[in-house]
């Protein structure tokens, strides 16, 4: 009989740690009151952006998906509409990152990536909402609010992440 062993490498530890921080940030965000229902800053994405820029895209994908699943299980929203909304947002964001990963880093910094992914996040959520949760064209009336919030929080998250990366590279 052969024992199957899982080789845990340093990379796995990194993913676990970063996911834990991302989950913690999502939970903090869940308990923060929001002035407009549905608009959230998405502070966990700071960690995901950080992971992608500090390590690589594959690790970012891991952290992002682990974050979505673990947060939903902790909050008890697993397989509920909330979960599918956050999953589709995450998948669209990651997909947009895969498409745009070859942007020249000489001209495009973390800010571009953050803005593109935040827009993709909104797009993913809106597609799910329109097709499944509220199948009515009236929801497009709310789209500008979400685009504006995506812009603001995408920018803020990117600036925080770039500051984090700067602080970390100095050490």
């Amino acid at each position: 009989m052969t024992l199957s062993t899982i080789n845990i490498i340093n990379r796995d530890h990194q993913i676990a740690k970063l996911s834990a921080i991302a989950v913690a940030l999502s939970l903090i965000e869940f308990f923060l009151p929001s002035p407009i229902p549905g608009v959230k800053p998405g502070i966990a994405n700071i960690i995901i952006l950080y992971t992608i820029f500090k390590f690589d895209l594959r690790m970012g994908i891991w952290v992002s998906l682990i974050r979505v699943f673990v947060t939903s299980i902790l909050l008890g929203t697993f397989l509920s509409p909330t979960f599918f909304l956050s999953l589709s947002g995450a998948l669209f964001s990651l997909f947009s990152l895969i498409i745009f990963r070859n942007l020249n880093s000489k001209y495009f910094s973390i800010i571009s990536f953050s803005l593109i992914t935040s827009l993709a996040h909104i797009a993913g959520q809106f597609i799910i909402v329109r097709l499944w949760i509220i199948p009515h064209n009236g929801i497009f009336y709310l789209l500008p609010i979400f685009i504006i919030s995506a812009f603001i929080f995408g920018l803020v998250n990117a600036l925080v992440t770039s500051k984090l990366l700067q602080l970390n590279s100095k050490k």
Partner: protein
Amino acid sequence: MIKKILQFFKVIKSGDWLIIILFCGLIIFSTKFLWNLPQGEYLEIYKRNEILATYSLNQKITKIINGAKGETKINIDNGKVRFSSAPCAKKYCIHQGWINKANQTIICIPNQISISIVGAKRKYDSINY
């Protein structure tokens, strides 16, 4: 202080400015395109699901409608309209204030009265109790 702010902006590269400008364009485009509701022309008053009456918005009158619980007063004031008194407990219909755009609706569920503004182009929507 100013130096610090300038340093902060150095993080943003030229391509980022392009993305930011594109994003702002998208914001302006989406607000203009999606929030451009046409002005209303007519007011429809519903009791349950039936249209009780249709009035032009270009007048200044107060209408009294008998609903399930009592009298509801509806003010029409040259292009805009509101509930000015209602027999319901929470008064959500009154707190909605004036409406003036096409397809805007105020519903008073306890009294089973709802009003809806119709533009020159009619768009059907459903209202159900």
